[in-house]
Structure formats: structure tokens, C-alpha cells
């Protein structure tokens, strides 16, 4: 038993969980083509969830702020991207990959820019007065969420809005009986880029450390000569921008969006960051991929269980590791 666990640790420890999951699923599913289709779809789904969850994980895990308004950034990101794409219909529908890509990147950039600016304002007005006070955070961010959703309703109206998908990303890559949606491939790549950049920022600089220290004892960090308030703004803004990018990607995936798009994702986002462990983007990635894969496998093998699968996964992991898979903070 011990030798198994130590071998497990040696070859990557908990990072192997998704691989293990995929292996088990392979045995149960039987058909290799179906397995590949489901696995690729699950991975891409995981990456999109990662984009939405990582921001919250940073803010919640590092700054200890329970931001129920996070979903507003997802929604705004989605709607802004949709509007940009709608304005660039000609480019989106064009037969040129470059124009397609340009339109898509512009849409994502617009969402990210919004996330940065709105995140900054949000921190100043909403979050600042309530650091360290979870319940007031819930109240005030909930208030802000209502306001944000109403603003979306006022601007974009209540009917669903359809999001044009760039021409080069529609359809699937068909290899044998395997079908891989192109959009999911793109989401996967973008998620990976976001992950790597975040990893560098947080691990190659002292930012992560400082923020964690600041949550524990703000005064002491200031007495060491750091402006914790500016740091917090920075992290918050980063988290909001990620949420907005995630929302933009999600809008392209859903193709039909309503103002509730963000809040509908919140439960899954919370599950992911709790599975992953608060404050660590490695954890968020791991959690998101687990949830993505699990969702698809279970939906195929036992559709009745699909709804409960995420909850069960979360409970199982918490029983095994009460702080999640890779917490940055305990």
C-alpha cells in the first residue's frame, strides 16, 4: 500500500488524478472513439471553467474576499464580447482566418479591458470597506451583483442574444468516428496561455506571498513597507479580467446568452475552487479539469448521476483532503 502511494507521489501525485480518471473511464466506456470525443470535450470544458474560476480563486484564496459579484464580470465579459462580435459581423463571417481571429481577439480584449477597469472601480467602491468581514462581503457583493444584472438588462434587454461564432471555429475536426469541436480546441489553447502567464506572475514574483501575508496580518505587511491596498487592487483587477475573458469564451461556446449566464455558472465555479484548494491556480486548473472530465464521463455512463456527480466529486475530495487538492492557504 505504501509503495503504491509513494510511486503515485513520485510520478506526480495528485496531478495524476485526471489521468487516473480518464483511464477508469476508458475501461468503462469501451468505445475508443467515444472516449476520445468525451475526453477532449471534457478537457476543453475544464479550461473554460478554469478561466472563470481562477479569478475567484485568487480573490477568495489570497485576499479572503467572498465575491458573489464575480459572476457579474463573467456576464459582462460575455455580453461585451457578443456586442463586439456582432459589430464585426463581416469579419466574423469572412472566409479569412486572420479576420476571424482578429475579430475574436478584439472581442476578448474588449472583455478583458472592461474587467480591468470595472474590477478597479469595484474594488474601490464595493470591496474596500469590507475586507476581513465575510458576511458584509456577501451582502455588499450581492447588492452589486443585483445592480450589475439590472444594468445588463437595461443595456442589452432581457431576450437572449445570439453570439456569432467566427467562421474558422465553427464545426468540428472529424477523425474517424472522433469529433472534436474546433471552438473547444481554441478554448483549450487560450486557457493554457492564461494558466502559464498566471503561474509565472504568482510564482516568479513575491505577489502571491505578499497577498497571503496581507490577509493574515495587514498591519504587519504594511509595517514591512508594502502598500497592501494597491496589491489587493492589483489582484482583484486581475481576477476580474480573467472572469471577463472566461465569460467571453463562454459566450462563444453557449452561442445564446442571457443576463443570467454568469450566475448560472457560479455553483460550478465554487465547486471547482473548493476541489482545487483556495488561492492556487494549479488547484483551480486541476479542479476544473476534473470537473470537466467527470461531467462528460458520468453523463455518458450514468446520465441520471450527472447532476450529482460534481457534488459527489467535491465531497469525496474534501473527505480525502479537507483543504482541497492543492491549497495555497490552509
Amino acid at each position, binding site marked *: 500500500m505504501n509503495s503504491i502511494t509513494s510511486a503515485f507521489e513520485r510520478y506526480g501525485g495528485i496531478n495524476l488524478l485526471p489521468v487516473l480518471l480518464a483511464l477508469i473511464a476508458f475501461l468503462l466506456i469501451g468505445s475508443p472513439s467515444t472516449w476520445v470525443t468525451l475526453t477532449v470535450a471534457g478537457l476543453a470544458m475544464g479550461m473554460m471553467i478554469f478561466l472563470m474560476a481562477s479569478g475567484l480563486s485568487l480573490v477568495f484564496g489570497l485576499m479572503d474576499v467572498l465575491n458573489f459579484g464575480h459572476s457579474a464580470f463573467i456576464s459582462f465579459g460575455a455580453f461585451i464580447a457578443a456586442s463586439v462580435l456582432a459589430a464585426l459581423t463581416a469579419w466574423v463571417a469572412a472566409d479569412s482566418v486572420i479576420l476571424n481571429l482578429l475579430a475574436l481577439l478584439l472581442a476578448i480584449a474588449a472583455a478583458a479591458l472592461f474587467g480591468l477597469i470595472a474590477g478597479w472601480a469595484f474594488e474601490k*467602491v464595493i470591496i474596500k470597506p469590507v475586507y476581513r*468581514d465575510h458576511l458584509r462581503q456577501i*451582502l455588499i457583493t450581492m447588492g452589486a451583483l443585483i445592480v450589475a444584472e*439590472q444594468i445588463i438588462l437595461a443595456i442589452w434587454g432581457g431576450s437572449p442574444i445570439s453570439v456569432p461564432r467566427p467562421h474558422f471555429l465553427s464545426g468540428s475536426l472529424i477523425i474517424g468516428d472522433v469529433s472534436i469541436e474546433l471552438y473547444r480546441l481554441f478554448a483549450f489553447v487560450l486557457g493554457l496561455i492564461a494558466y502559464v502567464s498566471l503561474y509565472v506572475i504568482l510564482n516568479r514574483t513575491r505577489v502571491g506571498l505578499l497577498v497571503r501575508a496581507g490577509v493574515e496580518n495587514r498591519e504587519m505587511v504594511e509595517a514591512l513597507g508594502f502598500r497592501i491596498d494597491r496589491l489587493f487592487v492589483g489582484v482583484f483587477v486581475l481576477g476580474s479580467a480573467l472572469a471577463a475573458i472566461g465569460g467571453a469564451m463562454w459566450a462563444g461556446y453557449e452561442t445564446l446568452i442571457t443576463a443570467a449566464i454568469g450566475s448560472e455558472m457560479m455553483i460550478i465555479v465554487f465547486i471547482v475552487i473548493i476541489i482545487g484548494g483556495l488561492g492556487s491556480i494549479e488547484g483551480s486548473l486541476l479542479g476544473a479539469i476534473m470537473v470537466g472530465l467527470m461531467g462528460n464521463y458520468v453523463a455518458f455512463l450514468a446520465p441520471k448521476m450527472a447532476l450529482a456527480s460534481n*457534488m459527489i466529486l*467535491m465531497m469525496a475530495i474534501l473527505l480525502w483532503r*479537507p483543504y482541497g487538492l492543492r491549497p495555497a492557504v490552509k
Partner: protein
Amino acid sequence: MSDIAIDTNANAARGRTGRLVVYAIIGAIGICLFLAPFLFPDVRSQEVAARICIFIVLVASYDLLIGYTGIVSFAHTMFFGLGAYGTAIALKLMGPGWDAILLGGALGLVVSLILAALVGLLSLRVKAIFFAMVTLAAASVMAVMASQFSDFTGGEDGIIYKVPKLFSPATKLLTDEDGKVLRIFGAKANGKMAAYYFVFFGSLILYFIMLRIVASPLGTVLEAIRENEMRAEALGYRVVLYRTAIFCIAALIAAGAGILRAVWLKYTGPETSLSFAIMIDILLMVVIGGMGTMTGAIIGATLMSLAQFYLKDLMQLASEATAGIPLLPELLAPDRWLLWLGVLFILLVYFFPAGIVGTLSRKGGHP
């Protein structure tokens, strides 16, 4: 030291006037609720008053957990729903009788108690955030079950049923010479009034039970657990048992509130007794009123319910009054009332950091 003494007195005096204000508000709300059928005979006010009564109980019972003991649970609506569905299903299956209310209500209470004890004993020893997630999971499982067993629960659509004759609007409690329903100050002494007083006194009893609990030695132990669990244990208090006990008590009271709700509404569905939206409402009411204060529940529940029912009308008036002015009428358009509710939350947090009661009486909640 002398300066400190003087200042403490001044502070205490300020706290005292604040507390007086709070008691005055509570008194006013209490009288309004007691006399609601006479003071506000219109239909909507009746609904609002009954809702306030029920939510005061629900919110106060939640405050036992979150404010007094520091337990964050998302399963409170689960117990509320168990009480409501128990009563509702019994009324539906057995027909409108007191036996159905008794049996269904008792069933709801028993199931709540068992579930609360299980959840509490199994998971109250772990970290707060984990417990919150366990309760969230439990609550969502319950919601799925309500949707799946639609033969009993009516699924998403809920169930409608009749209640004992005494509570039907057609019942005449008192009659005048012509045999018509007697009117007292414009209020009809009919079954509706009976139903309202059933809810009112039911809530009152539950509320008094909670008042006793928080003032009892048990209540002080709960506060100690909230403040420093490890130290409470070191003083000789079995923390897990206390937490489980209060979790069960809160669950029972919530289920009790659910019974009242089911009887009053004559309709039970996920949106009225099980949904996460209600959970959020409860949370907001607790925080607005002031955590760790039983009076906060009264103010929070009243304010929030009034806002949910009347803010829109108020805005209608404001919007009409400002008709000539540019921009303002659009911002005040009644359909945007939720926007202003959101703004209201934000302002409340700014100006009443410890909730209304907490801030007024300067008995700051814990940070």
C-alpha cells in the same frame, strides 16, 4: 484612567439611546403586526404582514447559527421546505383537516431533526467552509429530490391544496345582524383573519422560544464557541455536541416556520420554500438587521419584505413625480426596482456596518 472612565460613560449613553431607538422600532413593528388585519385591511398588506411574521422566525433561527454560534449553513431552506412540504403533502393527500396539519407538520419536524442531527454530528467538527459546502450539497440534493418526486411534490410547479375550513376566507368568524361577516374597523372577521392570527401567534411562540434560548446559559456558550472554539473546549464544553444541538434546534424552528408558511399560502413549491433565492434572502435579512441580535431579525425581515413588496410602488410615485426632469424618471422606472434594492444593500453596508441593530446599539457584531 479617568479619561477612559468618562468616555466609557459617554459611549454607554450613546449606546443607550441607540438601544431605545431599536426598542421603539421593534415595538412599532410588533404593534403593526399584531393589529395588521385592522390597520391594513387590504389584501397585499395581509400577505406582507404574514410573510414578515414567518420570516422573522426563519431569520432569527438562522441567526442562532450564523450570528450566535458562527456556523455558516446553506441548508436552512431545506428545513424550512421540509416543514412546508410535509404539511402541504399531508393536506393534499388527507384533505383539509387539522389532523393533516398535525401529522404532516410532525413528519416535517421529525425528518428535519433527524437530518439536522446527521449532518451536524457527521460534519460539524470540520472547517467552516467545508461545512458550508456540505450543507449546500445537502440542500441541492433536497431540491433535486423535490423536483424528481413530482408525483408528491408537484415538481417545479409545486402543489396547491386546501386548508381547514376555519382558515377559508368564506368562513365567518363573527356575523352582524344580517348574517354577514362582521367588519371591525373595515377588517372582515373572516377565516383569513383566523389564518393570520394562526401565523402571528405561531411565530410569536417560536420567537419567544428563541429569545429564551439566547438568554440562557446555552446561549452564552454558543457565543463562546463562536469567539474561540478551542478555548471553549478547554473550559470543558463539548463543542461538537453544542453545535449539533443548536443546529437541530434551528432546524426544528425553521421547519416550524415552514408549517406556518404552508398553511398560510395554501401553495408550496420550490420557489416559496426551498429555493436558494430564499436562502439568500435570509442571509441578507440577518446581515441587514444585525447578526447576533434577536431584534435584528425583526428589523431585517421587515425592511427587506417591505422593500420587496413596496419599493416598486414607491418608485412608481417617484418616477411620476419627477416626470419633467430629464434622466431621473428613467432611472426611477419601476421595473428597475431591483437596481435600487441592490443600491440599498450597498448603502446599508456602508452606513450600518454591524447591521441596523448592531450599529444603532453599538454592540458591534464580531468582525
